[in-house]
């Protein structure tokens, strides 16, 4: 029986139990993740990281969360009350949702029921994942907008533009996976990578790399954490938030990290299947019962480690570079890759042999290379008609502005009036 059929047989109470388990799992992982991140970052920066609260500082996050709960809840005067109140709830609540379609394991016996370790599965599970990740953007935008303050608004706009830009790359990187699995159901995709199948990370490396890049962009994490660039935008969209509301945004961000890692695991890293040769040990015993949960969690932790590693290793990108990477690199590469994958697969299906296929691919590569090499390498003529998209009519000082020298002040004895006029002259005219 496929995972979907098993889940369809679940009585509602079992679904409820599973939902509570998933919810609890996410909370625990989040708590541990924050500790994990701070410890690993600490190591990378030659310092111990949190080590006071509980063994190895494990309870640090709990302490922080409790502390936040007893902080004053400030609401700016200009804030839009209801939206300001709802935004953090949307941000955190939506983050949990996508996890409902992630397969945590195979068939198990839960309270006497044969079921699959997955809360829900349907023929369109991947769309659910995308839909839930889009809903999270509302939390960000509404939070920034409702604060009634310029920095959060700018942060929210940036953040929203960033998330939707990278959602394109993310969604397109799913296409090749769907093509190979022949289904949008997460359960089917994991099955297709099981028993003798190859992990799609190895089969479709381009898709995997694009997904990993875009999942970092999608979650607003370093090096793409432009929405909360402290040096430019203070805290980004949650500048005005304090107390538990701030904690909810924080929670949403970390739950999102876990979710996208879990999606990566499901789509590209074989889901709950035992890694490498371990699946063959003992006639596949490691792929049955509760073992898969272990493999799944290990893979998720691996992806989370990549998040932390990136944060520790890379400086923040500039916004224009970031958008350029998303729109001008990831999207076209993705589209070309999809066409290539579809073409190769169709040719294989229609009975074109490997040798012929390789020949065709070779010819295509040579032609493309030839075109690229033969193209005249002239600098792109600047389009004089181009309207600057940002900036508009705001008076900007010229780049080569020379600040006029302040004339030397007269000695103390001088009358106050000329001194004042001297100061006025000294003010550089921004509109020059």
């Amino acid at each position, binding site marked *: 029986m496929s995972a979907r059929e098993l889940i369809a047989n679940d009585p509602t109470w079992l679904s409820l139990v599973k939902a509570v388990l998933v919810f609890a799992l996410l909370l625990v992982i989040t708590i541990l993740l924050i500790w994990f991140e701070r410890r690993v970052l600490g190591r990378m920066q030659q310092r111990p990281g949190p080590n006071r609260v509980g063994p190895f500082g494990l309870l640090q996050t709990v302490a922080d969360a409790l502390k936040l709960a007893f902080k004053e809840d400030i609401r700016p005067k*200009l804030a839009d009350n209801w939206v300001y109140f709802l935004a953090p709830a949307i941000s955190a609540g939506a983050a949990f*949702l996508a996890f409902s379609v992630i397969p945590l394991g195979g068939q198990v016996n839960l309270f006497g029921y044969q079921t699959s370790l997955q809360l829900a599965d349907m023929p369109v599970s991947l769309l659910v994942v995308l839909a839930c990740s889009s809903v999270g953007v509302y939390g960000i935008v509404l939070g920034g907008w409702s604060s009634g303050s310029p920095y959060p608004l700018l942060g929210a706009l940036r953040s929203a533009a960033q998330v939707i830009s990278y*959602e394109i790359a993310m969604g397109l990187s799913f296409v090749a996976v769907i093509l190979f699995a*022949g289904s*949008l159901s997460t359960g089917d995709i994991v099955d297709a990578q099981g028993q003798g199948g190859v992990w799609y990370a190895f089969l479709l490396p381009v898709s995997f790399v694009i997904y990993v890049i875009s999942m970092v962009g999608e979650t607003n994490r370093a090096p793409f954490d432009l929405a909360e660039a402290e040096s430019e935008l203070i805290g980004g969209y949650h500048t005005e938030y304090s107390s538990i509301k701030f*904690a909810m945004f924080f929670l949403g961000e970390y739950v999102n990290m876990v979710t996208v890692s879990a999606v990566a695991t499901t789509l590209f890293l074989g889901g709950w299947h035992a890694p490498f040769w371990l699946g063959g040990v003992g006639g596949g015993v490691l792929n049955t019962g509760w073992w898969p949960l272990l493999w799944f969690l290990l893979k998720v932790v691996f992806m989370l480690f990549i998040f932390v590693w990136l944060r520790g290793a890379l400086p923040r990108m500039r916004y224009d570079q970031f958008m350029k990477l998303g729109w001008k690199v990831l999207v076209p590469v993705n589209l070309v890759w999809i066409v290539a994958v579809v*073409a190769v697969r169709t040719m294989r299906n229609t009975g074109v042999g490997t040798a012929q296929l390789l020949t065709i691919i070779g010819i295509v590569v040579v032609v493309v290379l030839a075109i690229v090499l033969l193209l005249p390498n002239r600098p792109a003529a600047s389009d004089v008609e181009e309207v600057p998209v940002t900036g508009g009519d705001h008076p900007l000082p010229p780049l080569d502005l020379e600040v006029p020298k302040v004339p030397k002040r007269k000695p103390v004895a001088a009358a106050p009036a000329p001194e004042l006029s001297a100061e006025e002259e000294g003010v550089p005219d921004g509109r020059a």
Partner: protein
Amino acid sequence: MEYVPILLLFVLGFGFAVFSVTIAEVTGPRRFNKAKQEGYECGIEPSPQPVVGGGRMPVAYYLTAMLFILFDIEMVFLYPFAVTADALGVFGLVEIVLFIATVAFAYAYVWRRGGLDWN
């Protein structure tokens, strides 16, 4: 019925979030201070805001949003294609290449006209 479990998780997740946000009103201290309720602008006097959320926003964000819709729809079309690609065979390949090429025209246009540039 397939969606009931998602609904359950939704209730749990949002319930938790809304509950937490609500109790923050009770648990936290209340010490009134006028400055606290101003918008935060690094300590300087907040610039006047015409309405909640401020006035206008750069048009580039609208452009990004429109491009997102364009490509999002492309993406959504590609999904059902990918599911049935094997059954469609060569016909499907030709059609999808045409489809992607059509979107690529618009993409090339936007790129050349600077719609993807930020400054």
